[in-house]
Each structure stands twice: as C-alpha cells, then as structure tokens.
C-alpha cells in the first residue's frame, strides 16, 4: 500500500513539475524575444521600406516584408480554402461512400501534413524552373497553398465529421439535395470550426520560411504584380540575423516581435470569430 501511495505522490510531483517547466520555458521564450525586440522597434520599422544601407544599420524599415507576408499568406489561405472545403465535405459518408477511399485520402493528407516545408520549397522550385518562372509572389503563393491545404482540409474534416446525421437527415427529408445540405446546413453548422481551421493554416503560412526561401525570392520593394519577387517576415528575420552588424541583428529581434503580434492577433481574431459565429449553430 505504501509503495502505491508513494508512486502516486511521485508521479503527481513529476506531472506538476512538467507543467511548470513547459509553461515556464514557453513564457520565458516569449518574454525574452519581446524583451530584446521592443527597444529596436520604432514606427519607421513598420512604415518604411529599406532605404540604401539599411542592411548596414542605416535607416528604413521592413514594410516590404510585412506587406509581402500578408500578400503571400492571404493569397495562399484563400486558394487553400477554395480547395480544402470541397475536399473536406467530400470526405463525408454521403459523398465518398466507400470508407476505404476516404481512408486513403486522409492518409495522403496526413503524409502531406508531414512533408517538411523545405521539401515543398524544393519541389516548387523544380516546377518553377520547368515553367521558366522566376521567384515571385505567384510562386510563393502556390507553394504556400500546397503547404496549407493538408492543415486546413484535415482540420475541416475533423469538425465536419462532428455534424450529427439527424441534422442532415432532416435536411434531406425536406427534399434538399446533398450539395444544398452541405452548403446551407453542414457548413453553417460548423462555420466557427471552419474559420478556425482557415486561421490556423493562415498562421502556419505566414510563419513559414523554408518553403518560400527559393520560390518567393526577396526584394526591398513592395511587389506590384504577381510575377514580382516578394519579401516576407520570416525571411527578413532570418537574413537580418545573418548580418554581422549588431544594429541590424537588433532589428531582426524587432521583426520577430512584429511577427509575434500578427500571430497573436490572428489567434484572438479566431477566438472572437468562432464565438460570434456560433450563434448559427443548431444545438
């Protein structure tokens, strides 16, 4: 009896300790990055593009990277949404019929989920070479779309699966077709979950550097066409960190704070949105 009680106590301690370590380390991480980044963060960082000598520590900002990242992530998220939603709806029983095919598609999505983003980048680069394209906004968007699809489709699939058969049967009983039911009943029922999935993918897209390293390029200007190269925040951080000048490295930390704030805003937005949209849900 004593041994069992002891085991209980020991493991409880271990569990509490792990939670404390996990939460502690993660909080320290955020605090450290913000602490180092805030002093170098000023208005010119977010309102100006790099001026001559910016990478030597002279003036300018990273507006090019902020706008570039938003273009890339918004473009990719919209495209991925248009492709993922039909896929997620199709994976449900009334469409796909055979469970084996659904399982195969889910396996493919899981594998795509696991493919390293650098592999997407390399693959995208091969395709672009083949088509004779240069590194550009379009290339970056397409590669990010491929990266986001498995994240979005799987997350949507999970929420759409939770829609009860009764609700769908009620819709069919009134004479609605499958696509009418899918659009007007199922999608509306899980709208909060669908948007959360989209924002999750957006977050992954805006933070990913490896996939756009070769496909989107880097430039100090804000792109004006889909075929222009485009800068991005993660790469801005990476390149600034790689310079030998302390002032520029400080700006890398500041850029990281900007990226963190964007991610934080997305997270809050997704929470608010899902609460707001939950009012359409039939309980």
């Amino acid at each position, binding site marked *: 009896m004593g041994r069992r009680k002891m085991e209980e106590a020991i*493991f409880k301690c271990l569990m509490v300790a792990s*939670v404390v370590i996990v939460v502690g380390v993660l909080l320290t991480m955020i605090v*450290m990055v913000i602490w*180092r980044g805030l002093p170098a963060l000023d208005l010119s960082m977010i309102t100006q593009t790099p001026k001559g000598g910016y990478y030597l520590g002279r003036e300018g900002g990273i507006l090019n990277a902020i706008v570039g990242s938003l273009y890339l992530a918004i473009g990719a998220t919209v495209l991925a949404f248009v492709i993922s939603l039909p*896929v997620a709806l199709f994976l449900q029983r009334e469409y796909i019929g055979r469970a084996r095919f659904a399982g195969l598609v889910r396996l493919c*999505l899981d594998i795509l989920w696991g493919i*390293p983003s*650098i592999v997407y980048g390399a693959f995208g680069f091969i395709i672009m070479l083949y088509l004779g394209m240069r590194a550009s906004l379009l290339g970056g968007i397409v590669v990010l779309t491929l990266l986001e699809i498995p994240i979005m489709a799987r997350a949507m699939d999970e929420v759409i699966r939770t829609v009860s058969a009764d609700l769908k049967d009620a819709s069919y009983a009134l004479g609605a077709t499958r696509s009418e039911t899918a659009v007007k009943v199922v999608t509306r029922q899980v709208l909060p979950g669908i948007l959360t999935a989209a924002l999750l993918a957006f977050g992954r897209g805006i933070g990913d550097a490896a996939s756009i390293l070769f496909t989107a390029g880097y430039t100090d200007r804000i792109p004006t066409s889909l075929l222009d190269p485009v800068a991005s925040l993660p790469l801005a*951080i*990476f390149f600034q960190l790689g310079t030998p000048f302390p002032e520029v490295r400080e700006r890398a930390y500041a850029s990281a704070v900007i990226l963190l704030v964007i991610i934080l805003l997305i997270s809050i937005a997704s929470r608010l949105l899902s609460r707001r949209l939950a009012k359409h849900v039939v309980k």
Partner: protein
Amino acid sequence: MEKGLSRLIGRRWADLAATRLMFVATVFVASVAVFIGIGLLLKSWPILEARPLSELLFSSVWCPSRGEFGFYPFIMGTLWVTGLAGIIALPLSLLSALYLAEYAPNKVRALVKPALDLLAGIPSVVYGIWGILALSLGGISIGFNVLAGGIVLAIMVIPVVTSVSEEVFRTVPRDIKEASLAVGATRWETAKHVVMRASLPGVAAAVVLGFSRAFGETMAVLMVVGNVARAPSSVMDPAYPLTALIANNYGEMMSVPLYDSALLLAALVLLVMVLVFNVAARLALARVQRRWA
C-alpha cells in the same frame, strides 16, 4: 408545373456538378503527394544513376566539388536532433497532458490550454531566435550543437503534442475511469492503466504529428545546430540535418555537376522517411485497435 420541373432538374444538375468538382478537388489533393514524389525522383535520378545507393546513403564524404556525395552525416544529423527532441519532449508533454486532463483544476486548464494552442502557432524562426538568445546568455553557453538543436525542437513540439494528447485523454469515458477507481486503483494507476491505454491510438497520432514537425523543421534548427558535415557522436557535437543542407545550399548549386540532383535526393530521402513514419504508425495503430476490438 413546367417551371417547377425545370427548377428541380436545375437543382439536381447543380448537385451533380458540385459532386464532380469536389471529386476532382479530392483527387487532386490526394495526388499532390504522388506528384511531389515523382518530381523529386525524376530530378534526383541522375545522381542515383551515377552513384550506387549504398554509397550515397552510407558514405561520410561530402565534397560536391570533387563529386563525392555521402549523405550519412546529414541523415545521422537529422536522426540525432529529432531523437533528442523526442527524448526531451515526450515525457514532458505526456505528463503535462495527463495532469491537465486528469488532475488539474478547471481554472488551471482554462488558462494553460489556450496558451498552448497559441504557442503551437508560433513560427519556427521565433523559436530559432530564442535559441540564439538563450545560447548567447552569458556563462552557461552550450554552443551550437545537437543539444541546442534538440532543445529548441523539443520546445517547438511540446505545445502541439501536449495539446493534442490532452484532448485525446479527455475523450476517455468517465465510466471506465470510475470503474478503475472503484476497484481500488489510485488516480495515477488509473491514468497509467486505463486512460493511457484507452487513448493509445490517439496519443500515437499526436506523437507522429509532433515528430513530423520536428523532423522537417528547417529554420529553427539551422540557426542553432552548428551545420558541420560530420556525423555527430555525442550531443555536444555539431550536426547538419538534411533540411538545413537543402536550405543552405539550394540556389547556389547550379554550377557544380550533380549537386542539384544530390540536394533533391536529400528532399526525396526526407519524403520517404515521412512516408515510412506515417505508414508504420498507421499499421501499428490498426494492429493495436484490432487486438482490443
């Protein structure tokens, strides 16, 4: 009547068209993995033809300008860093998840859970920056090596694995937990024998999820792992994972013969590893589930 009928036909037609479109989208998405595989295989074919596979995988000599392409150091680099991350992250994540699911007061869970979800969404460059900052803290520097890479990766993976496994643990029905407690098991024994066992498939999925991320992570690792092309023999050695190899050299390899082919072979190796990992996890799960069904 006529109008009603044509409307009916229209709706039926729209339904069929939508179904077709959805089918096409699904087939497209499912085949992307195949396309990537074929594309990489075609592009790495020149080097696979020029060198025996065993030499490519097991030779430690990496000298592209002399035409020597041994991937062994990079494969070992990836395995060391991912393995170390797993050793650090798994116990911490699973214990935390168990605590949050089984022991924690509601208030603690309500606070920690959203924080974990938020952290899971933080971009990897930020983790990399933290790695560099933490490494350069005066006095306790551990240098750019496997240990640094493993720690940064572990911290990246922990929120994902913890959050997903906590959700899995919470789906275990209350009845069977209470049955276990009723026959005199302690809470930990219940957690160990009942909760853990009942949620094994889900937890395995969570672990695969976390590991896929660790394994393919490029930027955060690249920044702290040292990038020396020699197979590490201890955690204090620098390493050079496959992902970092591609990121560092792609784009400037055009002038050296076979170099681009070699780097795409590295990408193919990563793809195959992910594939094996996923399929093995699936098969293991199916087996476990059949035994208990």
